[in-house]
């Protein structure tokens, strides 16, 4: 990359980000029934009439031939071990339950690894308190004495579990890279905003980046940007929401900092509720950054922008 920022202290390397996403999963008829029946210590499979196979967990459609699998069957909780792997999260195994054609994927519990052999007889271990999910079977254990069970018709089935709460938690360490790192570093240490110029369109870009998005040529010269600018568009925020930093009403604005060709999304503050509503901030308003006491190395180190004289 061509740039002249070699003198910059790059202490800002990365930021941690955590995503926590709640879901309500819909199990459907066959899977919902399978999960519900586990609570009664019964295992429910489905029979595909078209290809004459029984698979567990029960499925609404056959995974092999795609046919609708109408008939649910009660499957014994005994079977044989047809595969396993030892991981740091425990032993996972394929268990071919008696009378079925497709193994169930589950865990091996209460069993010494050295006693695992292909073809070993196993039986299910049940949770003391059913929770309405697949872990109502805690796993399968070697059970040499278990007799070979048989499929049975299902009589009165429990109502399917319709929905399951689920949350996905993901953690990231996002690299700033040279361009954001240089910007945030100078914001943090020197209260200095730095952009970069595209040698083709001559536009100054904030945040700085390695390539001009429009021209697709490498950017070149770092440019110091004043903390004053002009509002291009704005909106008065009246509602409250999670993560909000300012108390409504306040003004959210697209600000073109002097000399730049990009728009910075930030807020205009220092206004009374009355002033925020009054339309004092409008396209063309001149604004200047009010820096906070925080030095976190992000554009949130600017508390807000305030209106200054000289509006267009």
């Amino acid at each position: 990359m061509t740039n002249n920022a070699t003198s910059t202290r790059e202490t800002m390397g990365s930021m941690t980000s955590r995503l926590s996403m709640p879901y309500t999963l819909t199990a459907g008829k066959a899977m919902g029934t399978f999960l519900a029946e586990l609570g009664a210590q019964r295992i429910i499979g489905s029979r595909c009439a078209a290809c004459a196979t029984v698979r567990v967990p029960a499925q609404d459609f056959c995974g092999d031939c795609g046919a609708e699998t109408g008939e649910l069957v009660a499957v014994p909780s005994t079977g044989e071990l047809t595969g396993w792997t030892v991981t740091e999260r425990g032993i996972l195994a394929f268990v071919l339950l008696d009378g079925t054609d497709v193994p169930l994927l589950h865990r091996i519990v209460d069993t010494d690894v050295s006693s695992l052999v292909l073809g070993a007889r196993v039986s299910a271990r049940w949770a003391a308190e059913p929770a309405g999910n697949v872990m109502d079977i805690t796993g399968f254990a070697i059970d040499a004495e278990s007799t070979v069970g048989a499929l049975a018709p299902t009589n009165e089935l429990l109502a399917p579990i319709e929905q399951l709460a689920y949350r996905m938690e993901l953690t990231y360490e996002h690299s700033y890279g040279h361009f954001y790192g240089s910007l945030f570093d100078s914001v943090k240490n020197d209260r200095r905003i730095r952009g970069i110029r595209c040698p083709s369109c001559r536009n100054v870009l904030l945040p700085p980046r390695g390539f001009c998005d429009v021209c697709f040529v490498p950017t070149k010269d770092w440019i110091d940007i004043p903390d004053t600018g002009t509002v291009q568009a704005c909106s008065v925020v009246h509602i409250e929401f999670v993560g909000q930093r300012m108390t409504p009403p306040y003004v959210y604005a697209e600000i073109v900092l002097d000399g730049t060709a990009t728009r910075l999304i930030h807020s205009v503050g220092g206004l009374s509720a009355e002033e925020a509503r009054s339309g004092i901030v409008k396209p063309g308003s001149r604004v200047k950054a009010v820096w906070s006491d925080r030095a976190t190395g992000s554009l949130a180190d600017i508390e807000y922008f305030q209106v200054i004289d000289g509006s267009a």
Partner: protein
Amino acid sequence: MVAATSRNVAVVGSAQTQLKAAWSDRQHVDLISEAVARALLGTGLRIEDVDFVIDSGSDFLDGRSISNCGFLGAMGAHHKEESRVEEDGLWSALYGATKIASGSASVGLIVAYSKSSESDPNDYWTSLAEPFTQRPVGLDQNAVAGLFAQRYLTRFGVPASALRAVTHRAWAAADGNTFVDATLEMLQDEYWSQEIASPLRRSDMARPVDGAVAVLLASKDVARQIGGSPVWVTGMGSAIDQHFIAARDGATLPAAAAAASAAYRMAGASGASDFDIVEVSAGSTAGELMVLEALGMAEPGKAIDLYADGASPGLNPSGGALPADVVMASGLVRLHEVAAQLGGRSDHAPQGARRGLAHASGGLGMQNHCVITLETS
């Protein structure tokens, strides 16, 4: 149908960043723009000549939703037709080649990237699993690889120790590939011995790395204008297996076989032996053997013979995906490799190679497969 694409689309340029465990000083956009800018070099094409961009990446790995929207500038996609494929970049190439073959565009840019170092890639793999019965029991990519490896080794009577030859060969090739930050010295004792998912050890698993790759596809007319020796797309195929891993065979990859068979039919090829270079992507050593057998390079259970000293010089000259797996991009790296090797742009091409095959796998436990065949005049 076959003639419509055969030799109507060519790879006219391609490039990748170096692949390494963590590009911690660069953003996704930095990696993407480097690959794209370098793919254009030497083609005489400028970004303005590109009609469309198709890109592969994962919102889960990127940690943001519809992440391609933030990366458009780096991909050179400003005010262009752009679409995202949430699968390995080789599928993006398949769509791009189809689009050009249809006559609706002349030049397409295919991009794939990931920075799995920014999160735990196992969280990504687990997110692919069915959430009611597969995710809660602790299923992840390693566990599936272990379960299937046990099936494979047991069914064909291959000892787990034989897999060392697969690792060694892959890493030795990567050691000679300047675009992969992997050396034989990195294979320390712990790498060979650490149990990950029995019977597989750390050395058997594909090593996740960061990187980006870009491939420039062009119509026959444009390829001829560029001159040189175009690398033609001759065949393409893809196929997917069922999701429930216990319902898959595990010791063979019928979807990979179906994808290869479709590509061979289109290319008029009799089989894998028609290809001088075969670049495949696999999640584990045992998985790589299964891929080679599905492609028809060896009888079931016999692919290990391809790893004898001096055998199969055209097999993964780059090292393949085991030493450097860019999730969502390893297959497109394979296409770039085959094109560069056939086009005289690579320092690790086998002598006199004219035809090559690139393979990608995707999904949990290599559920999905794509094959593209290439040929130079």
